[in-house]
């Protein structure tokens, strides 16, 4: 990180290019990340969107973006990005548009598409070496339809389709590692509550060519059940408990950009959210809390 222009929070952009007053919920952790992505990438972008919460950013005839926007479908945003990227390259190559008119192509997707329906199109775009940034705002469920569990939902979380006493029985899919296995140009996990780490990773992604992942854990007051004012705090706890590791894949190596040496117990993150309230009352579910703690401990033990 020695070559970054983001040394302290004071270096973060002070002008904001994404308009306010969108249809996103107050305290949206995904929007927090998108703001910084737009600020650092600048307006010469086209956002290719997959169906999700953020599809509601551009409601005819208004848009918060300075750049362009193309909504595609739930499953095939990376293919839309392929078409746009290829067309821009062709048009520039044939001299039909000036190189100044070039755009960064950014796929914007939620976890519902990224971890599930859209994975095939994503894998294929990475395999082809598509030059694009893939921004996933991961709020760990189908948020736009009322927080049903998705393939990104963590173990034990209560969602509108996992209301039993043990919550969601499955385990969160490791999308970062799936990306890393494809050997992309770049992949990183990020979170809005660490804006400096986020800024450096956006900067790094922008400097590279090829498939680049920014996978953002997106604390979601509506879906997770907490006060919108606490979004930053929840995000910080996700990192400090070690539940959301901040990672980076570059040149075949995975590094942690932040190692929480004094990890807080997972309880301090879980107990703040309604979706885990069944772990703490009316009877504490010690074994389930311990199981989640064990999973996090095992991850960091392996990570060294």
């Amino acid at each position, binding site marked *: 990180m020695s070559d970054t222009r983001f040394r302290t929070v004071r270096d973060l952009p002070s002008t904001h290019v994404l308009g306010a007053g969108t249809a996103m919920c107050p305290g949206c952790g995904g929007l927090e990340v998108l703001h910084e992505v737009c600020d650092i990438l600048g307006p*010469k972008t*086209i956002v290719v969107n997959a169906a999700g919460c953020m599809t509601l950013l551009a409601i005819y005839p208004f848009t918060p973006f300075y750049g362009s926007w193309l*909504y595609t479908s739930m499953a095939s945003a990376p*293919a839309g990005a*392929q078409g*746009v990227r290829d067309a821009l390259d*062709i048009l520039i190559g044939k001299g039909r548009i000036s190189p*100044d008119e070039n755009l960064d192509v950014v796929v914007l997707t939620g976890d519902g598409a990224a971890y599930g329906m859209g994975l095939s*199109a994503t894998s294929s775009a990475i395999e082809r070496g598509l030059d694009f940034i893939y921004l996933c705002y991961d709020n760990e469920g189908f948020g736009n339809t009322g927080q049903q569990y998705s393939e990104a939902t963590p173990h034990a979380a209560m969602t509108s389709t996992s209301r039993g006493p043990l919550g969601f029985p499955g385990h969160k899919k490791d999308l970062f590692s799936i990306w890393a296995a494809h050997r992309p140009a770049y992949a990183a996990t990020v979170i809005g509550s660490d804006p400096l780490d986020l800024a450096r990773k956006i900067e790094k992604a922008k400097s590279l060519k090829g498939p680049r992942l920014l996978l953002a854990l997106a604390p979601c007051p509506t879906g997770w059940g907490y006060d919108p004012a606490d979004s930053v705090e929840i995000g910080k706890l996700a990192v400090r408990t070690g539940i959301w590791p901040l990672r980076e894949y570059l040149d075949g190596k995975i590094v942690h950009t932040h190692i929480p040496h004094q990890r807080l117990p997972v309880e301090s993150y879980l107990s703040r959210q309604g979706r885990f309230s069944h772990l703490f009352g009316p009877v504490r579910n010690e074994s389930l809390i311990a199981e989640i703690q064990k999973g996090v401990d095992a991850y960091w033990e392996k990570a060294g």
Partner: protein
Amino acid sequence: MRRALLTGNAAAAWGVRLSDADYVPAFPITPQTEIIETLAGWIDSGEFRGCRMVTLESEHSMLTAAGGAAAAGARVFTATSSQGLLYAMEMIYTIAGWRAPFVLVNVSRGVATPITLEPDHNDILAARDSGFLQIHCATCQEVLDTILIAYRLAEDERVRLPVIVNLDGFYLSFTREPVEIPDEDRVRRFLPSCCPGSIRFLASRPLSEAAVVLGGSTYSYFRYETHLALMNALGAYDEVSEAFTREFGRTHDTVEAYRAQDADLVFFMIGSFATKAKDAVDRLREIGKPVGLVRPRMLRPFPEERIRTLLRGKKAVAVIDQNLSMGKGGVLHAELASALYGQPGMPATLASFIGGLGGRDIPPEEFYEIEAVTRRAADEGTTPPTRLLYTKDELRDIRKLQAIAQAGQIKAKEEP
């Protein structure tokens, strides 16, 4: 100009090459694959310079890439068949609303279940209401010519919509016919290289495409806009087709009429099987039956006025549908009925026949029978029920196969 023996698929590839397409997102599927193989071969050998092909992981993605690139301003071609078209169907509907012009060739093939490779029109008719224009070809020459016409029509500012050009699997895709391949400079006069009006996504001129709408009023506005653009394509087609005739000497109207003017009974059908109907018309004429053929090339927009003009004063129409709308009958029959009903001077008898499913042949004898049944009904002033064409011999063969399979099963049980 030169003449060559080309398959329908090769004729399609020539159409794309002569159109100077920039970009081909692809995915293989029988019986379409020869088109993308031919294009890939030309791109690799340098004969088709300036075109880029990308193979996607599915037809759904292929159509998304096609729409994205067309919206960004490239001249785009893509092709599919059957299950591929159905798999892409979400994007067929979606992309039509992007108002991004490009050409999709569908090589018709029956849809599962049962799975088959051979043709009928249930695949392409599933795209009927999507907002794509739809043109059906009956010969290999028509395939090449129609692709040139389709680009000019799609890019016409009154239209700005994608076009599906349909040819039948096997009967056209793999059948060689003599085809005139026009010279490139003449094609450029008819269809200049692409198309500054199409470029939308520029750093200096940002644009939001396909944004969400809230409420039925805004939604209806855009849906009506697309419908009206399709309707504009009828007039635009006539201009484009006249220009085509001026340049190349061949005429491809929205509806082909064959010996229909003095006929009192006409066959009404689309696609390559219509050439079988032409042959039947000639033979029936030889024995003094005044029959003809009316073949819509364009199915969307539906050229109602032209069809009414051609059918006014006829006694009867035999509609032969190479498709089956389960629980209703022939799609073309219903389309025609809605176009004729209540209009002055229209034939009183519209008989419906289903045939040619999954490549099943319609031999001359069946055309004679269709003519006889329809004429009898017209004379009696009745409309016969929908007929599913099938012979006793075919049913006997199926029963025989089932009996053989069953006997084999019983034998296998007895001798484990």
